């Protein structure tokens, strides 16, 4: 009994939840209702999203936190095991696992990913992170090497071949030298579970264009977003491929605009975890290529609110309009974060999803 992967499904604009496996979610805030990411929190929010027809859940891979007062992300669930747990407790939603290529062997990942693909009957997905924070890698005694993306391409090729090959094979590459490789069970999805990465820099985008099904990219404003979409599409088309482009937003949805803006200021300015914001912004600016300069310069509140992603702040009508604009720029979907997913998803599902259906961005689910 295999199931459809929702990212291959009929929804015109796909919706997911992001970073619910880690404390704080995407926010850097000290408000008492901040996301604790207990297992029951993860489970409850995933089941709300699953029943409401959300298409995917995307976790972050974190091995240490951002310091500050609340040490956000220090508490986070390992994503293969986390996804395996959710796979058994959900029905339809797609489940990503996020893997740091330099830290995980491709054959370990191939088996873990296939395990979740079987538990979920074909709903697994892989989020590839080629390299990020030197502090975090130092914890493993791993230094950030050159050729991160070249290594990632070999890594992914090994996973695919391990699934497809009918007998043991040897692999000789620049980074991996493997003998008698075999991996069963193979994934249910062919040639492998869906694969995404998040990238802002040119090399990362080229990697996605060549190897991934989906690319997640942040943007500072709508015009900026349009430029990203055109750029990524052109890179994929030049390689005879098609890559679905997604973005990430943080959400405060309330009955009135004033209420929403007031709460955004409350948790992301007045009660921002400033120590964590400073740390996060400095790390991201130096070592990642996932955000542009303007985002760094102008959007401190966005970092506290949702790690530099685009803010969706307002009434259900306003947020539905914003999502329609994002869709019109060419994005196929977005991952969303909330201060507290379990508290806020029900209102979002009750009030925003019907508006998205009216706007033609979502269709009634058919079984």
């Amino acid at each position, binding site marked *: 009994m*295999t199931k*459809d*992967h929702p990212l*291959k*499904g009929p929804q015109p604009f796909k919706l997911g939840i992001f970073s619910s496996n880690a404390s704080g979610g995407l926010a850097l805030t000290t408000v008492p209702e901040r996301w604790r990411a207990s297992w029951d929190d993860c489970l409850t929010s995933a089941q709300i999203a699953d029943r409401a027809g959300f298409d995917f859940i995307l976790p972050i891979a974190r091995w240490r936190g951002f310091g500050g007062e609340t040490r956000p992300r220090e508490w986070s669930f390992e994503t293969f095991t986390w996804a395996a747990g959710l796979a058994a407790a959900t029905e339809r939603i797609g489940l990503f696992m996020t893997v740091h290529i330099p830290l995980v062997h491709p054959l370990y990942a191939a088996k873990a990913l296939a395990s979740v693909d079987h538990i979920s009957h*074909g709903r697994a997905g892989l989020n590839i992170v080629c390299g990020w924070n030197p502090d975090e890698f130092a914890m493993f005694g791993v230094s950030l090497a050159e050729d991160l993306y070249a290594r990632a391409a070999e890594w992914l090729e090994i996973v*695919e*071949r*391990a*699934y*497809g*090959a*009918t*007998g043991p*094979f040897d692999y000789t590459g620049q980074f991996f030298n493997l003998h008698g490789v075999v991996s069963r069970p*193979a*994934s*249910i*999805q*062919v*040639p492998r579970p869906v694969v995404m990465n998040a990238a802002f820099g040119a090399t990362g985008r080229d990697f996605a264009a060549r190897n991934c*099904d989906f690319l997640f990219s942040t943007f500072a404003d709508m015009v900026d977003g349009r430029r990203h979409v055109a750029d990524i599409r052109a890179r994929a*088309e030049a*390689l*005879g*491929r*098609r890559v679905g482009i997604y973005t990430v937003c943080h959400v405060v949805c309330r009955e009135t605009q004033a209420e929403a803006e007031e709460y955004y200021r409350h948790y992301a300015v007045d009660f921002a975890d400033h120590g964590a914001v400073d740390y996060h912004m400095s790390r991201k600016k130096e070592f990642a290529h996932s955000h542009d300069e303007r985002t760094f310069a102008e959007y401190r509140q966005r970092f506290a609110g949702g790690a530099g992603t685009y803010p969706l702040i307002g009434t259900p009508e306003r947020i539905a309009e914003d999502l329609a604009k994002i869709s019109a720029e060419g994005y196929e979907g977005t991952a969303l974060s909330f201060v507290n997913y379990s508290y806020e998803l029900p209102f979002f599902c009750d009030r925003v999803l019907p508006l998205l259906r009216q706007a033609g961005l979502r269709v009634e689910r058919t079984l």
Partner: protein
Amino acid sequence: MIEIPDSQSPPSSAAFRSAMRLHIGGISVVTVTATDGECCGITATAFCSLSDAPPTLIVCVNRNARLANMLQAGKPFAVNLPNANQQEIARVFGGMTSIRGRARFGCGSWHRGDNGAPILRHARASFECIASELVTHTTHVIVIGTVTHLRVGARANGALAYVDGRFLAVA
């Protein structure tokens, strides 16, 4: 009605092809996973039943297609019949878009069949086969497949045919 006789004998390749455009062909997507793990698929209309005892089918593949080199006697392949809503998949695997190679499997939902060949979800039917014989004739190879597994999907969406150089949904 105007009849255009083709006086040339034997007819040219072009004349033959344009006459064959008048024939309604059912659309199938033939898929294979090579022994090294590489997946490949092509859209084909030259597919038909050969026998029901044991269930056997034939499919004709151009020898220049990469898939033809991956098909071997004793090895698995699959024939998928897309439904009328899966025309884009037929276009992609028919080389009618810019998408090349295994990236084509990004279009549509594909699962691993019991023999390892890719199976299209929501297809009207999928036949998993073992290639029992390959007969090479001129430009093409005729693949005789013994059906090992059969999957029949919902018929609600209609069938997909190809005629006059166009896809046609058959309710």
